[in-house]
């Protein structure tokens, strides 16, 4: 359905998706660039504009649906995955985009999030991970690094954070990608990949909260440090990064290791080649786990495995039952089994 539509014929532009509502994020918030990237991607997907539904939970990120001129729903805290699942199951033709944050989907909505990933509902999920509760003004979230001092952790947090990628892969998710809010071009490319992938396509966006957690991703996004702390993954390409493009990832023993090409006899041949399509999650999990300063953060599509989607299986089963069931109407059902007549 969606794929057969000619993009040019639809002639959609960014304007078609801009809403008339005032965008009320803080000046300098990373969410602005995410919004721009989504507005850029939607017209290029070949999907009629009325077939998009943008769904969210609660939090700064979750105001997103109001800022897009599509069908949209701003739900309740943590429940975006359940809303999106219901929408997609009721009408699988729709392109459903779920917008959520680290609090919304890793804390209060954790349960719905893992089950959405496990079921492989055909959704596109954007997690704005700023590692803080912004809308409630600065409490720690489940992704806040251990020891961080926040309004509710004056001595620093005592709890280990979640890594969204690890959670997705651990929940048997089939697609996981990571982007940074400072690279709109890459965001657009990866959002397009997510849209094309059938199933729960989950993208973590390292987003900056300028007010309550400024520079939390600083090592990864900082102008001076980013080259040594970002690894752009591409399918079939060696995992090479660094200011001088001379660093690479190798698999050694039971873990990944950063090496320098040209040192200790290492050549480009020795560098691990990225395979997002393998169903084995081991390397994907390790890639998702890499974080500075010991490793670069892996960006791009880390995992992309083909599998039947939940909504498709449900509706295939509906079609099958329609064909095979002797019950064609409720009148048939009401009269099936043990009945008797009173004359």
């Amino acid at each position: 359905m969606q794929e057969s539509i000619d993009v040019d014929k639809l002639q959609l532009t960014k304007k078609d998706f801009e809403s008339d509502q005032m965008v009320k994020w803080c000046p300098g918030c990373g969410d602005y660039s995410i919004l721009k990237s989504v507005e850029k991607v939607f017209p290029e997907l070949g999907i009629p504009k009325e077939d998009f539904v943008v769904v969210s939970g609660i939090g700064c990120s979750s105001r997103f649906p109001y800022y897009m001129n599509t069908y949209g729903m701003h739900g309740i805290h943590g429940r975006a995955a359940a809303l999106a699942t219901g929408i997609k199951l009721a009408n699988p033709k729709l392109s459903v985009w779920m917008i959520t944050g680290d609090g919304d989907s890793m804390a209060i909505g954790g349960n719905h999030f893992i089950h959405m990933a496990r079921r492989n509902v055909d959704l596109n999920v954007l997690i704005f991970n700023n590692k803080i509760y912004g809308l409630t003004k600065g409490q720690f979230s489940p992704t806040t690094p251990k020891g961080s001092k926040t309004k509710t952790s004056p001595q620093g947090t005592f709890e280990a954070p979640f890594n969204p990628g690890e959670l997705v892969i651990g929940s048997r998710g089939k697609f996981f990608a990571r982007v940074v809010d400072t690279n709109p071009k890459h965001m657009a490319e990866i959002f397009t990949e997510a849209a094309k992938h059938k199933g729960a396509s989950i993208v973590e966006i390292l987003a900056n909260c300028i007010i309550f957690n400024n520079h939390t991703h600083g090592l990864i996004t900082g102008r001076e440090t980013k080259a040594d702390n970002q690894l752009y993954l591409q399918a079939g390409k060696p995992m090479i990064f660094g200011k001088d493009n001379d660093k690479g990832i190798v698999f050694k023993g039971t873990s990944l290791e950063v090496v320098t090409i040209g040192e200790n006899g290492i050549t480009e041949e020795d560098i691990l080649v990225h395979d997002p399509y393998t169903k084995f999650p081991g390397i994907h999990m390790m890639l998702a786990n890499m974080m500075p300063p010991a490793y670069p953060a892996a960006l791009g599509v880390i995992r992309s495995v083909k599998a039947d989607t939940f909504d498709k299986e449900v509706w295939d089963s509906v079609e099958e039952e329609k064909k095979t069931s002797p019950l064609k109407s409720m009148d048939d059902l009401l009269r099936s089994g043990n009945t008797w007549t009173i004359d």
Partner: protein
Amino acid sequence: MVSTKDKVVELEHAVIRFAGDSGDGMQLTGNLFSDSTAFAGNDFATFPDYPAEIRAPQGTVAGVSGFQIHFGQTNIHTSGDLADVLIAMNPASLKANMNWITNEAIIIVDTDAFIEKNLVKAGYESDPTIDGSLNGHLVVSAPISTLTKEAVRELDLDNKSAQKSKNMFALGIVFYMFNRDFKQTFSFFEEKFKKNQLIVDANKRVLTAGYHFAHTIEAFANTFVVEPAPLEKGLYRNVTGNLATAWGLLAAAERSGRNLFLGSYPITPASEILQELSRHKQFSSVAFQAEDEIAGIVSTIGASYAGAIPVTTTSGPGLSLKSEAIGLAVMMELPIVIVDVQRGGPSTGLPTKSEQSDLMQALYGRNGEAPVIVMAAQSSADCFYAAYEATKLSVELMTPVILLTDGSLANGSEVFKIPRVADLPEITPPVVEANDPDYQPYKRDPETLARRWALPGTEGLRHRIGGLEKENGSGNVSHDPLNHQLMSEIREEKVERVAKHIPELEIIGEDEGELLVVGWGGTYGVMLTALEKMREEGKKVSMAHFKHIKPLPSNTEEVLSRFKKIIVCEINLGQFVNYLRMRFPGIEFLQFNKIQGLPFLVGELKEKFEALLNE
């Protein structure tokens, strides 16, 4: 010689209770007796009584499973107060049911099970069948286990399989007592065990053996017959409340021309609705078993936005978990039917027992001013019509509806006259046409105040909704103080105006007088029976029984004000009576409450009402 078989006593109605260990197959035995009752043309109602545990320790009182059937040649509205016949397959089942039988009840026991070990487990110090404690009862002592073994001796059946059919021996005895035909039961065996002819033969033999045993030992001075009831002409079946609820929802979806979506999480005693709806994908209905109660309702809200007939089903604790999401549906003014099969609470409470204690939660259990339509089904068969009407109101008026049923209705069964779907009221959801230039998300029908349903995928209707307060008309987010007041009042008024779409309150009995007995939901049958008995005795008493709770029928106050005394009866501590007191402060209400996980008994209601008349 005149055989006892020839002496037949006609009964107007009778109550039989089958009781045994939870593995003894008492539910099946009861259901088979129900089927034969249907074919005998009686009206009837049944109720299963089983423990919360799947297999509680064998032989203990906690592990007793029971099934009661009340059948008659007149209309039957309840599964009966006390049993006239008790089948007790072991000492524990006798012990557990002694309070639930009449003083003259006939008791059939399996003497093979009345051995020292079982007596001790049941807490008996001596064998009640021989120590005189059952004096006054006719006790039919049958070595059922031995005779079952004997009956299948010629078949190549191991002892364990043979013993599984001993419940059929007991059924054979009861068939003899009530002059029942085997035909239906035999065809059931042939269908159910068609893959194992040996089991078919064994069951047939054991059933026949029980029948002949009762005849041969001349256990009864006479047998009984209950003549057919004067039921309207038509096609009938037996339904439990949960089955009727599921089918009412499906019928409404079909009539509306839209697909049903159920988002639900298993919970006793509501799971059967989810199970039943999971079986009917052929009607393009999707039953989604969610990861929790919250996802159950929230996925349904998503499906509602996308245009499905939206249903979620649960029981009390689940309704608590759904509260926030119900508020979201109220704010977004989307349809959703929330079925709450009430059970004993609070917390986990009494999962397998019935109660009417979720009423206040249904009416008010949310943050903010969050009015919804609240209805309550009045009988197992009425669950069909209540579910149908709840769906119609919800989708036509774009308003959440909470439909209350309860454990007694859900698991109890009664005779149901099968309707034609085409004869049910039309359901026309207010779906917006593509590119409607007048469309605004919160523009309302001036009559009903309902907004319209604009479905994703429709050209020219893109819009956003959500949990933040909306501006009336445009639906844009609004924090305007006056708009919030307006919207709060509109949401309340919209629900109150539903009174125009529901029937007026009916009075059974005189239109005015000394005493009006009032109830709601699942107590209908037992209250009606008490009322009918009193009126047969010439006593002046009337009844008003509520199916619609919010809004109340428009003539409620006027009806109530015609009576000198009003007593409100509920299986809780007085939730409806307090709602009525709040709505009608000028009217005085008495109350009668019971909260034991058990339904009212006709006898206790009658006694209470008579005392009020005599005051």
